[in-house]
């Protein structure tokens, strides 16, 4: 019997997260090695088109669970339909997203197997997966195996290549049965984030640290106390960070020090207790590079550091470094990229 590799396609209101397609590509590779097939699973309401796209990215066929009760993501109804379809897979791949991670964990319980989360490398030993995953926030790497079946794995975003889409590729889309269910939770609203590129998907990240508040040349508006003046200064600094990120089509990150000082929301934090990222280019501005910050960004392809302190540990990771004042360098760098990229 050929091995069935099943991929969960994560999406938000019908828009797939890019790591879903990376997972289809990884599944295709495993299927090639094992002589198996790739089945995409899409759960939601009005998801036929996503299933067809999954096939165009390399799945052989797809199963959809398409029902009004599945319109909003909720853990229990989604886990219930997945338990009914994943049981005959040899390997199940999920994207490591907020939804993919918990659904994979729940499937491991429901199917009495195990889950390997946030994997950055996949190999095979016979028909068993040998996954590589960062542990201790990337301070170490572990090889991890699962002795039960299905072997359930979640893949980190940007760790596997996105396959090339083939618009001519077709396959069968089957509708799975959705049993009526008494859901324990209801979604009563959304507050969407203010657009922009998400940190974990970003190809370029420009990050600011404590140093963004250190511009003595700025004079804050009258009437602010010391703390308010510090935050005002930091916001001027983060504006420069944001301008550079915008020109490069990237996202804005921050060190824990900058988040804890109240300069920028927690959702921007990169590091061991923030987000772990691996963009193509990471520009650290006014970040000294504590071990906890390094844990969140050390797998970036290229790191550039701008810091006043030539001894800052961040320079040990950097390909290029500038010892200088970010208030002078950042606006000039934004202009330089604008000219060269024609943006």
């Amino acid at each position, binding site marked *: 019997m050929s091995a069935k590799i099943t991929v969960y396609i994560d999406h938000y209101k019908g828009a797939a997260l890019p790591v879903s397609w990376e997972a289809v590509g990884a599944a295709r590779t495993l299927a090639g090695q094992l002589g198996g097939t790739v089945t995409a699973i899409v759960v939601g309401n009005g998801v036929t088109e996503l299933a067809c796209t999954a096939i165009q990215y390399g799945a052989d066929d797809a199963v959809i669970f398409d029902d009004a009760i599945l319109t909003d993501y909720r*853990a229990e109804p989604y886990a219930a339909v997945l338990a009914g379809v994943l049981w005959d897979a040899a390997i199940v791949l999920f994207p490591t997203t907020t939804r993919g991670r918990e659904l994979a*964990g729940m499937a491991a319980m429901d199917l009495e197997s195990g*889950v390997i989360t946030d994997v950055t490398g996949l190999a095979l030993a016979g028909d068993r997966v040998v996954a590589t995953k960062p542990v201790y926030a990337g301070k170490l790497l572990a090889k991890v195996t699962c002795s039960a079946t299905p072997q359930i794995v979640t893949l980190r975003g940007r760790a596997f290549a996105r396959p090339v889409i083939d618009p001519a590729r077709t396959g069968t889309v089957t509708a799975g049965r959705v049993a009526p269910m008494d859901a324990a939770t209801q979604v009563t609203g959304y507050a969407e984030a203010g657009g922009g590129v998400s940190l974990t998907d970003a190809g370029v990240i420009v990050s600011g640290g404590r140093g963004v508040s250190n511009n003595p040349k700025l004079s804050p508006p009258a009437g602010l106390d010391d703390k308010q003046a510090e935050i005002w200064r930091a916001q001027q600094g983060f504006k420069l960070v944001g301008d550079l990120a915008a020109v490069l089509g990237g996202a804005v990150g921050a060190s824990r020090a900058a988040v804890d000082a109240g300069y920028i929301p927690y959702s921007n934090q990169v590091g061991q207790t923030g987000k772990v990222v691996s963009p193509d280019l990471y520009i650290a501005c006014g970040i000294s590079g504590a071990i906890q910050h390094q844990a969140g960004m050390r797998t970036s392809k290229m790191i550039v550091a701008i810091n006043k302190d030539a001894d800052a540990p961040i320079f040990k990771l950097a390909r*290029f470094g500038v010892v200088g004042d970010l208030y002078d360098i950042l606006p000039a760098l934004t202009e330089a990229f604008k000219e060269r990229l024609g943006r």
Partner: protein
Amino acid sequence: MKIVVCVKQVPDTAARVTVINGQVSWGDSPLVINPWDEYAVEAALAQNGDVTALTLGEAGNNEALKTALAMGCNEAVIVSDPALADADSQAAARVLAAAIQKIGGVELVVFGRQAVDGDGGVTAAQTARALGWPVLSLAASVAAGDGKIKVERAVEEGRQIVEGRLPAVISVTKDIGEPRYPSFMGIRKASRAVIPAWTLADLGMSAPAPTISWPEVMNPPSREVVAEFIGGGDPKEIAAALAEKILAEKVI
């Protein structure tokens, strides 16, 4: 309202963790409460219930529980059994669920978003599954009481507001607010506390068979870079040179 907060003891995040002879080592760095779990304790205490802190671990590994007690938790329990030495997250979830059932009358179970050692982030959802309760994960805010719960979940796209019935399991993010500092009285109480240790026999179960193993742990490949410093000139010249060099490497 009876609440359980699940905590884990881990190496301090400032520790330099390395592999020596195939074994994970964090030198003489202390073991502390998982930093994400401090937010879980805060969220649990903020509900004004009767809060029990629960952990799995080697006998005597009470540091995380003592921190939870010092912050204000009413009780603490450790489940400790040599048969759990190789427990994976699935096994841990089944044991935690059994301990929560033994505590009895629990309406809310609170977890941190993940532990900074294995970085799995699935134990909350898995414990909910073992209990047969709903999970509301990654809560940025929580309001629970009168048999109901409402959370704002922090997801990639922003916030999702979810309501449900108790009992339920939640995990919380840093958005919940700064964890309180242990009080002087709390620290004294924690230092004197006798923490009950339950075995699997006390829970009336045998060790769940683990399915996940780590056959090898490695130090990551070192980043072999020597920074090329760009200087000499005014900011405009430095910026132009830096932009040229970045573009020449064709990473973007």
